[in-house]
């Protein structure tokens, strides 16, 4: 659909109305109704906006997919599971046993069990997190970070501590990571330079936390 400037004497064609409809913020009861309606002259094009009543979400068309609007929270989860991280170890946190958004987990992009966040598209994502640790018996640098893939090219660092004795908590201030197409991201804990393991020991008052927001492509 092309934009058109109307002048006196113009004939108003059906395609003119189609152009107006497809440029508006269209509302549908669910995804199936949207698919059924947007065919032919109304076929989806990049930048089209829709809202679905069943999930209350706003979508934007990009390529062949309906993507979240930038700023949409994709998931927010918590865990009260303990995880041991060996000396020099790097562990992906998984088994997120509480979904803080009810059942919301956009496209099931976060695998709740493995802790792997997989996106079918490249783009920018904002992550945040926090991890609580039990009492370490040795000093050493400990940190958490989010990284895309198991490499470190695409990553966002969390706060670091050189912890002596005593429980402590690390936070990942919300920050942006670029993730390549079909890439993945994780919340990871690093326990480096120490001779002993350390245990992620969340409890009801301080569970591990992990969340993500889509920031556009």
């Amino acid at each position, binding site marked *: 659909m092309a*934009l*058109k*400037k*109307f*002048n*006196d004497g*113009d004939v*108003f064609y059906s395609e*003119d109305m189609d*152009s*107006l409809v497809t*440029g*508006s*913020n269209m509302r549908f009861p669910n995804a199936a109704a949207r698919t059924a309606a947007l065919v032919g002259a109304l076929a989806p*094009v*990049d*930048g*089209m*906006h829709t809202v679905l009543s069943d999930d209350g979400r706003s979508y934007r068309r*990009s390529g062949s997919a309906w993507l979240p609007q*930038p*700023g949409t929270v994709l998931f927010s989860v918590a865990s009260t599971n303990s995880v041991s991280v060996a000396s020099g170890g790097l562990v992906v946190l998984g088994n997120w046993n509480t979904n803080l958004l009810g059942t919301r987990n956009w496209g099931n992009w976060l695998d709740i069990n493995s802790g792997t966040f997989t996106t079918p598209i*490249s783009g*920018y994502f*904002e992550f945040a997190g926090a991890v609580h640790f039990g009492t370490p018996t040795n*000093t050493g*640098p400990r*940190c958490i*970070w989010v*990284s895309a893939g198991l490499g*470190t*090219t*695409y*990553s*966002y*660092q*969390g*706060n*670091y*501590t*050189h912890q002596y004795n005593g429980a402590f908590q690390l936070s*990942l*201030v*919300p*920050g*942006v*990571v*670029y993730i390549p197409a079909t890439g993945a991201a994780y919340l990871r804990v690093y326990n*480096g*330079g120490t001779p002993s393991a350390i245990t992620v020991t969340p409890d009801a008052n301080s569970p591990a936390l992990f969340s993500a927001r889509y*920031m*556009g*492509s």
Partner: protein
Amino acid sequence: MAVKDWSDGDLLTPLAMNDLTSQMYMRFANVAARDAFLVGDYAPTAGMSVFMMDTNMTLVYTSVGGNNYWAPLPGTLCFYAQQVNAQSVSLNAITGYTLANHGNRNYGNWFDAASGKFTPAVPGIYEFTGGVSLTTSASGAGSHRVGFRLNGTGGTAYNLNSGSWAYAPQGSFTTSFSTRRFMLLLNGTTDYVELVAYSNPYAATTVTGAMAATFSAKYVGQ
């Protein structure tokens, strides 16, 4: 342009059609196409929204202090930059990071990779985040900090207080930390912001780390 409540028997006039069109999410291939179309009856007015297909961004025509701008939708990521090469941080001095723009997100080319400066052309509030990874030298120990610097000055409260502080013992340790989420009101002309580091060890520190530093900014609005 005015919003109209339609009634039976109303005439559909070109002016009415143009009113409707100008209130849509109009899609354009690029800035040149947008500026060529939005003239006359379609001249931009405050609040008009357009979707730019070359950058996948929604823009809103915004009036600030008598001047008009095509501003990103509030909450939009303006740029995302990432460290490419290792870099030394001078002792007891604030050092700006050298970062490369990553991906295709750099609205208006406001982030200059050569200087590491983010200089937005729309006045308003911007939110910054960043993360760094430092590796101390074997003989180095002391405090390391990261934060944001406004307009290159060294003594404002926005500087290292906007970030995090870490202490690393003597030895080769990797120190990673993220900044606070931090917001600033920028004037849209000369104000610029950099990601900076400060190191106060006993020996020089090299900004290599296990991971690349990152720096990004969001447009928050007016």
